């Protein structure tokens, strides 16, 4: 591992997670171990100690009340009582033992609790005992040591002591091993995401993060990121297509303008000059309108146009739009039928919605054919409003329906009609700004565009 890689490792989340994991693992092991020790060793020892202390109290009382003989009798009797083997030693003030079943005891008086070895040989066999004893000085200066066997508890204690050493080693190994396995598993998944992201940044937009197929969190994240990459790829593709179109659509009038001006330089006759000038101005205007429409769409799409949202009376707006286009329709011998519900009000930008409706009516008139009828219907639908504008023209072939809202796309058969191919793109942007929906369908012969706000 190279030095920078190690540096990265130390900074890495997976390592930190690993360290935390080790710490938590060891702490929880220690806690569990401590609890077990408390229950198996400490508590029984305490209970035993309490029992011995109470026995010592009883024996001291017997000594005071009944004298030394009574105490000795009590000690002898005691040898056979209790679940754990009792031990005792009574040592006179001069140091001579009076009665004892402890094999040995310390010369100096013990204070508090002490554990004494009390192994006893009986019939050639050694019995291991461990006595928990307490010492009391009697009134005449004699030492009374009383205790009970706690060998079984003590064995457990030893087991715990040895066990804990092993446990620490094993737990540490498990923790470190586990943390390395965990870090590397997480690290690998993250690396897969990082590698893909870098390849995408390097320009390969078709890259996707590999999925494990386990449906785990990382798979879910990867799937979401892949979906995001899909969207980005799609929109980059559409930007690419649009910018190709933009280049073409802007170059064409520009080239014509250039040609007109070029010819103008050599034109001799006034009439010729006039014609070329008019032509050049028309091209300039066309360029301007394409520019305006493109900027407008871009502006609406980037959401910079949110200020004008107010309640809009659609019933009135649609009537105004129909009235605006009526002369054009009548000039073509077309009729406009309307079926508009009263009181349709939505939240929106009235100028933009008027623009959208106007564009659709314009299309319906342009492509609706001579003498046809178009129909504008609007009604409330749930929380929103559905506006349908249908004509009796040739309609839009199904294979083009997805593309007509693309900038500059024109259905091939309509190339002869004037237009920029931006009308429906603008409508689509306006509808999207209003979080609405646009559907393109047909009604027998004829196109029907439905806006749902």
């Amino acid at each position, binding site marked *: 591992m190279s030095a920078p890689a190690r540096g990265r490792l130390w900074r890495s989340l997976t390592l930190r997670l690993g360290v935390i994991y080790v710490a938590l693992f060891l702490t929880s092991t220690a806690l569990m171990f401590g609890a077990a020790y408390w229950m198996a060793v400490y508590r029984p020892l305490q209970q035993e100690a309490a029992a011995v202390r109470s026995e010592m109290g009883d024996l001291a009382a017997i000594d005071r009340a009944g004298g030394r003989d009574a105490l000795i009798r009590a000690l002898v009797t005691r040898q056979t009582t209790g679940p754990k083997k009792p031990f005792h030693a009574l040592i006179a003030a001069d140091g001579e033992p009076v009665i004892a079943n402890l094999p040995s005891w310390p010369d100096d008086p013990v204070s508090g609790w002490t554990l004494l070895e009390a192994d006893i040989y009986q019939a050639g066999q050694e019995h291991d005992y461990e006595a928990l004893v307490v010492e009391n000085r009697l009134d005449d200066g004699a030492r009374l040591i009383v205790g009970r066997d706690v060998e079984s508890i003590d064995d457990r204690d030893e087991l715990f002591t040895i066990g804990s050493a092993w446990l620490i080693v094993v737990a540490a190994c498990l923790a470190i091993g586990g943390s390395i396995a965990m870090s590397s598993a997480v690290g690998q998944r993250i690396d897969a995401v990082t590698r893909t992201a870098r390849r995408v940044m390097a320009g390969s937009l078709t890259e996707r993060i590999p999925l494990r197929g386990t449906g785990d969190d990382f798979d879910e994240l990867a799937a979401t990121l892949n979906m995001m990459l899909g969207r980005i790829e799609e929109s980059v593709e559409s930007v690419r297509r649009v910018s190709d179109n933009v280049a073409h659509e802007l170059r064409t009038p520009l080239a014509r303008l250039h040609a007109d001006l070029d010819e103008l330089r050599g034109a001799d006759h006034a009439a010729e000059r006039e014609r070329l000038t008019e032509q050049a101005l028309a091209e*300039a205007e066309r360029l*301007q*309108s394409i520019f*305006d*429409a493109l*900027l*407008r769409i871009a*502006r609406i799409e980037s959401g910079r*146009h949110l*200020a*004008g949202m107010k309640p809009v009376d659609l019933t009135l*707006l649609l009537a*105004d739009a129909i*009235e*605006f*286009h009526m*002369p*054009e329709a009548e*000039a073509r011998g077309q009729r406009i039928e309307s079926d508009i519900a009263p009181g349709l009000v939505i939240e929106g930008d*009235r*100028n933009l919605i*008027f*623009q959208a409706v*106007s*564009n659709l009516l*314009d299309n319906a008139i*342009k492509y609706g054919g001579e003498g046809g009828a178009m129909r504008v219907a609007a009604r409330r639908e749930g929380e929103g409003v559905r506006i349908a504008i249908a004509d009796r023209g040739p309609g839009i072939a199904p294979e083009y329906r997805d593309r007509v809202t693309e900038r500059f796309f024109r259905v091939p058969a309509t190339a002869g009609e*004037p*237009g920029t191919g931006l*009308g429906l793109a603008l409508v689509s942007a306006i509808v999207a700004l209003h979080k609405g929906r646009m559907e393109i369908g047909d009604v027998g012969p004829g196109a029907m565009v439905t806006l749902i706000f």
Partner: protein
Amino acid sequence: MHILVIEDDARVAEHIGKGLKAAGHLVDLEGDGRAGLLRAAAETYDLIVVDRMLPNVDGLTIVQTIRATGDTTPVLFLSALAEVDERVAGLRAGGDDYLTKPFAMSELLARIDVLSRRGPAIVAETKLNVGDLEIDLLGQAVRRGGRPVDLTAREFRILAYLARNEGRVVTRSMLLEHVWDYHFDPQTNIIDQHVSRLRQKVDRGFETPLIHTVRGTGYMMRAGG
């Protein structure tokens, strides 16, 4: 008219200056926002044409400043910022009209002509007369040669706007702005068709037409000739 033009692009400024002079106006040009503001404040003009984006002081500030001093000189914004909200910002700052670049000289001249008519004291008119045409603004009724002319509400508004600017060129975009209550770009020249319908109702059967077409620009209402 004495007109101040504040425009930083030298060629556009020259173009405007030439066009305005040819139309018989006296023109002062300024290319800098601060200099333009000082000049507008120091001298008296009949009209100010101002760009939005200018070095040092922008057009909106210039207009706000001169309006704050109580100056009511008509102001026409000339700007590449074309969106409705930009336009609203311009009018709110105190502009009287807003024309977007690029523009046709005829459009600019027509708008300047109409603006110059807006004196400080506009009398609330109730009746307009052009030749033998009478327009009753309160009753929304029109008579020509004493005979009533039946118009739709929209046609009435077109006619009233033309009559109010009698003898002046009214462009299609001016009509669109003043007669329809929506700011939008019509795809085709429908305004012409609206005017032609109106013309049929108003001028048909009369010897002298009142609504005249100004080629390449718009319309003009004028009695006789």
